[in-house]
């Protein structure tokens, strides 16, 4: 079970307080109407799904209700860093 540092509450909490919300940094296209079906499908469904470093979106559902980002190794489950929405990760895959 993960022990996750909430960047807003500024302390570690148990995984049960959080929900994983998938890959981070997927911006909604600014002009959806200009997207082809393929582009829209890729926005909605296609994912990096890497084995290794992964930037993912979580929400502190039972705590402060804020979304934030986690960089995590999907193989070792090690959390490399957490950062707020709008911030950029400092740990990235090679």
């Amino acid at each position, binding site marked *: 079970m993960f022990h996750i540092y909430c960047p*807003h509450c500024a302390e570690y909490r148990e995984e049960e307080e959080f929900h994983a919300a998938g890959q981070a940094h997927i911006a909604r296209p600014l002009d959806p109407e200009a997207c082809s079906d393929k582009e829209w499908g890729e926005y909605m469904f296609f994912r990096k799904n890497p084995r290794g470093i992964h930037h993912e979106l979580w929400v502190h559902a039972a705590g*402060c209700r804020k979304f934030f980002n986690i960089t995590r190794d999907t193989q070792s489950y090690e959390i490399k860093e957490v950062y707020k929405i709008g911030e950029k990760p400092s740990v990235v895959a090679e």
Partner: protein
Amino acid sequence: MSDLNVMTAAEMAATKAAVMDQVPGPEIQGQSPLHHADLDSLAKVGPKQGGVHLREHKLLGHLTLRLNPENDDQLAAAERVLGVALPLQPLTSVESGSYSVRWMSPDEWLILVPGLEAFDVESKFRDEMGGHYSLVNSSGGSTVLELSGPDVVELLKRCTSIDLHPKLFPVGKVVSTVFAKSSAIIRRTGEHSFELVIRRSFSDYIWLWLQETSREFGLVVKA
């Protein structure tokens, strides 16, 4: 019966947000979420000795304030209304007379006031504060349980994964967390006493849970 509470559409539009005194006159007695458990009677007939003591603080005014913590005007306005500055440190709380304020999130505070004052406080906020904020009366949706006694920490460790060691959870600290299979806002009010804000619809579940979990310590219900 009077309809003094009626607002015209124009009045409502002008205020941008609808504000409403939701509490009727004193002739109508409200029923707290644990009304059906009849804790007052249990307090009379139940055990007087035990490791965990429980008391419901009923029918308080619960107000949720949302604002931008970087807006000094709003912070000042809040302080004018509450008589104390909003706690900006995560997971802290402050008290001011009969008011208490809990940090819930970087832009959210839960304020408890005496039940009959909720509307006054809300109105004061509306008078004092400008800009983008929200204030929501949630008094009907929650209740407050006070848990205390020598075994209270042992009990809470069976309900929540929060570390309650006094060094990490001093008096005044407040967390919003999973509580059994529900949720609670937990605040430490003393070495052996805590305050739980719980949701109305889950209150019966939590009441059952606390009875079951406290069996080995003995539960004393207080009026």
